[in-house]
């Protein structure tokens, strides 16, 4: 940090106090638990027309926030993940089953999150859908609320099994129409402020929007522990928040529009490491 130095000339002191523009992500390297090297910067996937390098949102955060993700003991998201491990083994619903009745353990899902969302039986499916479908069909249990801590804790637990693997979602074949729809949403200006996702996260990442250092809006670390809300935040909740801030009517969490947007935004991060559960401001 720069410190203001007392100088007799008032004008010179003023000049020194001008903070440097944060136009770029920082140069820090993310190694979790001193062993797991994460890719936070890589060449953009071919389908991106206007961006050459993609960066994890971690690179845009302050050193203090970054530090919380370096060690699982310090990562506040792990409390919710621990609760999800208990939920994994807890019987729920009319069938008297838990997740563990069918699945040996969360480790079975290694790699799944890196390839989500994907098309199953002609429908675009995200992790929350998988969980609630299994709860309904196999367990006879009530669905979890989309952005509730039970749901997001389990999404994070399953995502954790893929941590360090590169994001690699399919955008061709069956997924293509959903991906095109997501792309259209990404580049559509919404709300009174007429802002699209791209206006901030593509054209202006690295710049400040008021007090916030704009990232590329990558979702490789979701569900993310957001310090502001002190809990795990779902992808759709953050989409909603961003669109709301443009003063628009937003799509609902769990809507087909947000599923498509999730696929598109995830594909913009193809090549970055899965960071779930990340810590952000």
């Amino acid at each position, binding site marked *: 940090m720069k410190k203001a130095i007392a100088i007799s000339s008032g004008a010179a002191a003023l000049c020194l106090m001008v903070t440097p523009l944060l136009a770029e992500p920082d140069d820090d390297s993310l190694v979790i638990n001193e062993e797991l090297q994460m890719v936070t910067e890589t060449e953009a996937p071919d389908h991106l027309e206007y961006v050459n390098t993609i960066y994890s949102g971690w690179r845009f955060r302050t050193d203090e926030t970054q530090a919380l993700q370096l060690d699982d*003991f*310090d990562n*506040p998201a792990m*409390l919710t993940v*621990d*609760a999800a491990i208990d939920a994994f083994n807890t019987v729920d619903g009319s069938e008297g089953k838990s997740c563990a009745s069918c699945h040996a353990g969360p480790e079975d899902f290694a790699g799944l999150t890196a390839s989500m969302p994907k098309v199953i039986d002609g429908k675009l499916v995200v992790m929350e859908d998988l969980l609630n479908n299994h709860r309904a069909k196999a367990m006879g249990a009530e669905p979890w609320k989309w952005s509730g801590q039970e749901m997001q804790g389990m999404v994070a637990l399953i995502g954790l099994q893929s941590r360090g693997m590169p994001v690699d979602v399919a955008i061709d074949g069956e997924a293509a129409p959903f991906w095109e729809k997501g792309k259209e949403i990404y580049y559509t200006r919404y709300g009174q402020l007429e802002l699209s996702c791209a206006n901030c996260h593509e054209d202006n990442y690295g710049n400040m929007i008021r007090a916030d250092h704009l990232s590329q809006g990558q979702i490789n670390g979701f569900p993310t522990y957001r310090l502001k809300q002190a809990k795990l935040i779902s992808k759709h909740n953050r989409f909603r928040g961003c669109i709301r801030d443009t003063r628009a009517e937003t799509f609902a969490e769990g809507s087909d529009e947000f599923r498509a947007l999730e696929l598109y935004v995830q594909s913009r991060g193809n090549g970055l490491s899965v960071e779930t559960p990340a810590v952000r401001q």
Partner: protein
Amino acid sequence: MADGVKPRVKVPKTASAGEAVTIKTLISHQMESGQRKDKEGNTIPRSIINRFVVDFNGQNVIDVTLEPAISTNPYFEFEAIVPESGDFTFTWYDDDGSVYEETKSVEVS
């Protein structure tokens, strides 16, 4: 016992004699202050961890009194000098009388 209470401790497994090691502890606990009211206007009774003690081979390392203003999931990080191999014992005392304990061994090489 309050719901969802789970102590967590991180202590290095090995240290050299006389080395100051960093110890991190966290207990997941609601830390209800006793100042809040529910929808009907009734006071939600206080339920906090009120004392946290760490001993090493029977010798006290720290002894902390916790007050209601301390927020959810109290976290303590501190350094302790390890003169010999032995066990750290961590004890949290809950308002409701529950006591949560955790033990970690350190090997001095």
